[in-house]
């Protein structure tokens, strides 16, 4: 018997997980739809110009995706918060990897698919409704307001913003959600808040390290682009730019973009393996 991964066992575990949580998940999707409707209704009430501009749709999608995604990921291993449910979870005959894979499937993959689906259902309905109002009453149609009746494609950025912008935003969102997934295993209680505080502390420590510690060893200057160039300020002879070699820069950029989420998953896996039930 494979102790690490067995496809049939994983399918079995995933169906068990779905069966036990489907009510909760379907209700959550309903709640997401309700929240989006509330948010758009609020915008319609307070905005005199077009409340469904492309930017608003885009920002709504990504902010909602990240906030709800983080909340969802932080609840993924909520069973581990309490002794009784932790025993139920840990004693179930499936490997830690299979349990993690199901966690990733539901909190990242299926969440992404279902959130996007709910978003588009609500977005399409509201845009159509607004268009009808605009056609009937003439509201929101002044040229200044940039009225559009288009349902925006959230995966394609306008050319002036760089074609891969949304890919990077999506990768960053998945990376952050993966941190919350780790937080749901790492912390016993108040996972969401503790993860948020931890991420903030790590970020501040990083900023402090870059600006206060590294600067002690470097000549007077600053990082640019964002860390691939170090510009040494020299008033008399002119600034001097020290650039990382292109290949090293590409590797660092690649790792920065694509490794955050997998690193978090590996950490979650080991944390899951070493989890004990003290309560």
């Amino acid at each position, binding site marked *: *018997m494979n*102790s690490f991964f*067995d496809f049939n*066992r994983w399918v*079995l*575990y995933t*169906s*068990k997980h779905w*069966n*036990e949580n489907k*009510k909760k998940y379907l209700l959550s999707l309903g709640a997401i739809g309700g929240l989006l409707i509330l948010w758009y209704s609020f915008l319609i009430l307070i905005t005199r110009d077009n409340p469904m501009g492309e930017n608003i749709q885009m920002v709504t999608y990504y902010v909602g995706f990240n906030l709800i995604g983080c909340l969802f990921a932080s609840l993924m291993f909520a*069973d581990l918060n*309490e*002794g*009784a*449910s*932790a*025993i*139920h979870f*840990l*004693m*179930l*005959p*499936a*490997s*830690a990897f299979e349990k993690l894979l199901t966690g990733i499937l539901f909190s990242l993959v299926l969440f992404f698919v279902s959130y996007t689906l709910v978003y588009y259902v609500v977005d399409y309905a509201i845009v159509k409704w607004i268009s009808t109002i605009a056609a009937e009453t003439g509201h929101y149609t002044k040229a200044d307001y940039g009225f559009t009746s288009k349902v925006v494609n959230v995966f394609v950025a306008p050319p002036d913003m760089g074609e891969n912008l949304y890919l990077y935003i999506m990768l960053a969102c998945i990376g952050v959600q993966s941190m919350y997934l780790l937080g749901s295993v790492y912390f016993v209680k108040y996972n969401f808040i503790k993860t948020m505080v931890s991420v903030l502390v790590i970020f501040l420590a990083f900023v402090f390290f870059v600006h206060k510690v590294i600067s002690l060893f470097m000549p007077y200057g600053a990082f640019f682009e964002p860390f691939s160039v170090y510009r040494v300020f020299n008033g008399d002879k002119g600034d001097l730019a020290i650039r990382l070699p292109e290949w090293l820069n590409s590797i660092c950029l690649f790792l920065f973009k694509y490794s955050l989420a997998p690193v978090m998953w590996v950490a979650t896996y080991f944390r899951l*393996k*070493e989890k*004990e*039930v*003290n309560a």
Partner: protein
Amino acid sequence: MIQIQNLHFGYRRKKVFTGLNLQLQPGHIYGLLGKNGTGKSTLLKNMAGLLFPDEGSVNVLGFAPEKRQPAFLQDIFMVPEEFFLPDIPIEHLVKYHAPFYPKFNDDQFNRYITEFDIPRSNTLQKMSYGQKKKVLISFGLACNTSVLLMDEPTNGLDIMSKSQFRKVMAGCIDETKCIVISTHQVKDLENLIDRITIIDEGKILFDQTVENITRKLSFHISFDNEEIKQALHREASLRGSAVITRNVTGEESKLDLELLYKAIILNGNAIHSVFNA
């Protein structure tokens, strides 16, 4: 089947075990007795891989429990004192959980459910605490795992259910299984367990088979002042004194588990002298 060697374990501020040794064999129902907070649940969790030893080794069915390998988990079942069951109907519990346990027996499960008088129409969360516990016990027994760990299984059960529990348990043991029941309600396990292990202050205070106990000790009510005075342990009651004496006649008496437990806790040396002789 279960070998614990030189187990050291402690929580942050409290040492629980310092060099505990214990061996459990298949074909027995072990009663793990002890006061609250003496480490019974901690020991079960170490056996189940829910807590990891600080030092020493725990070996269950040839596995290191802390690795929680699926092959190990599918041959061990734990009924914890505080348990969780998802909000699903009984049928779904069987449909989605039973496939993880290769030796699960549907007929056996249905028999236990009927025996425990559990209504099938409700989802698990709509059942009372006692009913849920009985579902979990039934499921655990029907899994037919080689090791079954039960932590205070009779807590929360009414008088009828306790008697049903004893009846069900008595019928499920065979030579391949090892059942460990931890409890402080010793009366509930009378006539059920065949080996008694008493833990106190993280140490094994007493570990004997029931057969050995009843061969060496006699439990009876006495009105004879001389016998009462010389008894290894005595307890006054309305109808004479309940005493434990050395079994000199060779006639086996009915084990009074509660009396034995008190004797070992209060007067351990006298009892041990009989077994060490």
